[in-house]
């Protein structure tokens, strides 16, 4: 292909990627080292507020932002180095917690609490998603051709549901008076509150994510199984390989590139876990890194939002994903070079 043709095809998408991915990323990177704040002055004013019977007035000195002649708030931006990162990671408290072997103290810091959950969530769901996806793919592959279509359709359903809606449905099923909790209470004869402690919430989150993503792994693996060379399997059968041995030595090696692909996508997705926290209202017990960034960006009632700390938290999340992906990327890069 001539370079010009290539550029014409790739150019528009490259431009959009620079505009909507690279530029915001650079801007977040820059913001994470700066703090922008309004210029504040102290003014003495009398304020009167409504009471039920009479007005309540008080004269107080208030901090009020300075406005310029066009009526917008005057702000200053200054470089603060790693200050924002320090405010998120809190190295001093971490050091104190580690030197005294105090795990709860470490978990009392939002960032580390979120990192602990995000990492364990990602690493636990990964093998479950791949295992379950592969199992469904093999099962579907072995069913009669006539019912395969409906079975594939039904297995795909969880993946089609919008994540927030899925998370909300799980909460409504398992909340204090939800039907599944009621059923479990009737069956076990004791009071069950799935959302009253952290570990049950985490279990539900793992269950929900695996249920939601396994169909994606299934579709990819199922497609891979269609390219399986029948001769290789028949040869293995001739050699007396059992069902398990055929799976272990013939099918899985054939699917290996796809397993890497699914792992890569799943690691990126699971590390950004967010819908579960919002949908389950779990922020008292369980928070994730993505949720932490979101929470910092939410304005409070007085309109303040911690943009610089949110930027730092977002950068840290991205660095985390990159670190997780490096081994997988290196492996596929080596394979890629080997093929050549």
């Amino acid at each position, binding site marked *: 292909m001539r370079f010009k043709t290539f550029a014409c095809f790739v150019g528009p998408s490259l431009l959009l990627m620079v505009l909507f991915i690279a530029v915001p990323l650079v801007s977040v990177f820059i913001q994470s080292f700066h703090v922008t704040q309004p210029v504040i002055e102290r003014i003495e004013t009398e304020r009167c507020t409504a009471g039920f019977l009479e007005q309540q007035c008080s004269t107080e000195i208030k901090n009020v932002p300075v406005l310029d002649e066009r009526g917008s708030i005057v702000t200053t931006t200054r470089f603060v180095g790693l200050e924002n990162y320090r405010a998120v990671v809190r190295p001093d408290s971490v050091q104190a917690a580690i030197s005294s072997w105090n795990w709860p103290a470490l978990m009392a810091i939002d960032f580390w609490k979120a990192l602990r959950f995000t990492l364990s969530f990602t690493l636990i769901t990964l093998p479950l998603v791949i295992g379950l996806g592969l199992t469904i793919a093999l099962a579907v592959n072995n069913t009669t051709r006539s019912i395969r279509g409906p079975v594939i359709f039904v297995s795909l359903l969880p993946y089609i549901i919008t994540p927030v809606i899925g998370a909300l449905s799980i909460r409504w099923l398992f*909340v204090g008076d939800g039907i599944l909790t009621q059923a479990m209470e009737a069956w076990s004869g004791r009071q069950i509150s799935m*959302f009253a402690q952290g570990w049950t919430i985490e279990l539900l989150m793992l269950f929900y994510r695996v249920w939601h993503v396994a169909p994606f792994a299934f579709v990819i693996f199922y497609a891979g199984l269609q390219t399986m060379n029948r001769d290789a399997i028949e040869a293995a059968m001739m050699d007396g390989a059992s069902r398990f041995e055929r799976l272990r030595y013939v099918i899985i090696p054939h699917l290996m590139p796809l397993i890497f692909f699914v792992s890569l996508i799943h690691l990126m997705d699971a590390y950004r876990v967010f819908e579960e926290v*919002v949908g389950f209202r779990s922020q008292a017990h369980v928070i994730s890194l993505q949720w932490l960034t979101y929470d910092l960006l939410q304005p409070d009632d*007085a*309109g303040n939002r911690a943009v610089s700390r949110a930027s730092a938290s977002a950068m840290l999340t991205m660095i985390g994903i990159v670190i997780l992906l490096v081994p997988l990327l290196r492996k596929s890069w080596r394979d890629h070079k080997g093929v050549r």
Partner: protein
Amino acid sequence: MKRKSLLVAAVLAALVSGPATAACSFRNEVPVRILSAAFEAWKSVTDAMAECGNVTASLDQEFRTKLSAAFAAKPALYQMAGVSNTTIPPLLNQNTIRPLNDLVEKHGQHLKPNQLIKVGDDIVAVAMMVNTQELAYRKDIFDELGLEVPGTYDELFEVAEKIRESDKVAYPLGGTTMSGWNLALEWINFYASLAGDSFVNPDGTPNFNNENGIRALELLKRTTEYMDPEYLMSDSTFVQQQMQHGKIAMANLWASRVGAMDNEAESTVVGKVHTAPSPIAAEGARPVAMLYWDGIVIPRNISDEAAEAAFRVAMEGLSTEMVQAHNDDAVWLIDGYQPGRLAEGAVATATADPGPVPYPMTIEMGLVHSAIGNQISGFFTGTKSAEAALMAAEEEYRTAAGEAGLLH
């Protein structure tokens, strides 16, 4: 009042042209768009305004995230907004509210002085209702068990214990204790009961990490022992439903929510819920509540003509006829209001001596509220002590106040 809820309740009440009905004294020709919170009182008021014609109201529980940008636009995207003392500070700070002195003089002579919200000499808002907490309780259960209505939290715990033993309801108590904004508000109410509105010092440094702060935390935790174990997910809608479905016997709840107990379409306890003043946290303390007002503001960045039309429409909404038609939707400040059974508690709370303090209209209060909301839930899940939770909240406040330019 702003109630944080995941589901945005957005109701669009639009009434374009058509003959103005008899309820409105003039025919409005200038388009007036309104943005406000989405609880019952706002629905009644904006419906009354819509009778003047050319009025479009957006009722949205997440309105505060849109409001300051919408008012800062030139021209402003709305001609009127419904705010409260918790949501007005960003508008005051960016100076996008039109002083209403001239309009009050021309069209608002009938307004009562306590409806006029002032900063310096400027009238910045016209209040229509106050909101506060009141103790809603199941009179039938109290009568059956021979219980007295609790006036203090010590009495409340005794009563709750007896209700628990009687097994009449699933849980004796309900509370708006969803972690974050709601839980922080409960703590703020307890703190204000013990110590008034001294959350920050005059120089902006935090002042809540003290004995009263810890007592407030401990009292709040004690109330949760009588609640549904999933109390950290319980917002005001959830408590309202718990009470409507007969699952709880008491709750110190927003007055704006208690009115729904007599809604026959939703409630199974119509007529059984009575109200009393919010109990006090300790002898000589204030009720565990704060005072809020809800009212209307008009943006600076619109023409005088539009502002006048918006104000005249507002006066039609905040009228005695509207109050008479919707008496039980709120504790109205407007003439003609008669407190009903479900508002008696709120009126008693508001007029108690010493009475509840108003929620402060300051930037600092927003930061205190967020810091408390983020940090105290660890105390309830058992991962932090009360001291550690308040210490963490103080640190977070200092960080946030530093970023906001308030502390150096």
